[in-house]
């Protein structure tokens, strides 16, 4: 073990180190119980400082909003366009409040993968992974079931919510597109497109972990708790 970063531990506890220093301390802490104990005692002080924040109450609806965001039934459809030209749709996507830091190359990539280039899909996929590495996140192109016009990509940013960028045909009356996270055999409802179609960004209301699958099905309007409709898009991470 290297020497203990003793002088940095107080600053670490209040987040005052720059990124590289912090990463160094983080790595050391994983291995060193002595420094972990030191950080824990400074963390108590930090919490004490936090408690000096004037206790201004949040609005009465904050709790509901917090819980709403994680309930599948009320999953947000972050952005939609009824029938936009593709790039227009993409521009709207990048207006989102979602913490996106998607570089231009990734935008182009998404345009390509959403274009559904048929035989070029495998190429688009490889390109996706290459670019996603640069983008510090992962893009997985969803496989489309034969016969569907739907196309989509799963984006798992390094920080922030995983989301789907979808190009969806208009659902039949009384139906909606619904997203699922497949954990093992268990499908978890992860949001609906509602009455929106075209290019749609759907922020998943479930986390996506390595090994999880993602699927999109056609379901009764309002969404259902367990999928009954046919899968039109799917991928396994």
């Amino acid at each position: 073990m290297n020497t203990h970063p003793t002088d940095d531990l107080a600053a670490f506890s209040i987040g005052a180190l720059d990124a590289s220093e912090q990463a160094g301390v983080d790595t050391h802490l994983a291995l060193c119980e002595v420094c972990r104990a030191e950080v824990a005692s400074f963390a108590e002080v930090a919490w004490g400082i936090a408690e000096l924040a004037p206790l201004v109450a949040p609005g009465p609806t904050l709790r509901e909003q917090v819980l709403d965001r994680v309930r599948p039934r009320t999953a947000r459809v972050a952005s939609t366009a009824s029938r936009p030209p593709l790039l227009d749709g993409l521009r709207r996507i990048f207006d989102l409040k979602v913490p996106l830091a998607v570089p231009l190359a990734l935008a182009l990539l998404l345009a390509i993968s959403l274009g559904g280039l048929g035989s070029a899909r495998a190429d688009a996929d490889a390109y996706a992974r290459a670019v996603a590495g640069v983008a510090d996140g992962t893009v997985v192109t969803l496989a489309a079931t034969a016969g569907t016009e739907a196309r989509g990509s799963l984006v798992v940013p390094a920080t922030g919510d995983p989301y789907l960028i979808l190009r969806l045909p208009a659902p039949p009356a009384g139906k909606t597109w619904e997203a699922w996270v497949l954990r093992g055999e268990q499908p978890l409802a992860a949001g609906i497109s509602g009455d929106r179609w075209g290019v749609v960004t759907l922020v998943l209301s479930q986390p996506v972990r390595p090994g999880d699958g993602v699927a999109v099905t056609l379901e009764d309007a309002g969404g259902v708790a367990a999928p009954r409709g046919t899968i039109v898009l799917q991928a396994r991470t």
Partner: protein
Amino acid sequence: MERIAAGDAGALGEIYDAYGRIVFAIVYRMLASPEAAEEVAQDVFHAVWRRAGAYRRERGAVRTWLLAIARNAAIDWRRTRGKRVEREVELDAATAMRADSSVVDSVLLSLRAERVRDAVRTLPPEQRDVLALAFWGGLTQAEIALRTATPLGTVKSRVRLGMEKLRLHLAEES
């Protein structure tokens, strides 16, 4: 945290009930805007929901983890959406804001805060200032050095000495 990681929204509700107010208060203190604070507090609990699986008990208490998420979220918000709030930061702004009619008080919390406040008063002003810039201003030591035209080494030792003094003071009292 295990329950949240397993997708139990009720468990997230419990965390919100325990920490919602303080998280809101922290980001409000950092951003000085109730609208921004509501938005960021939402993001904080959403991040808790998504990252609960990554929480490691042996790496610190839940509230420490939560505090780091809250501070980072506020700093991110300021970087991406907020105009940088350039104003005097004091380590303890309570006196200025206590008059606010929306202030809620919890007796237990204020007793504890009183002890910390006493400890803060014992700090030399230059240590108090760097801690405030770091904690509430969300600045790194290097940024503080630049901002205050102080050598980095001096800033670092002020942070360390200030935190050590607070720790000592709080330990003596309990």
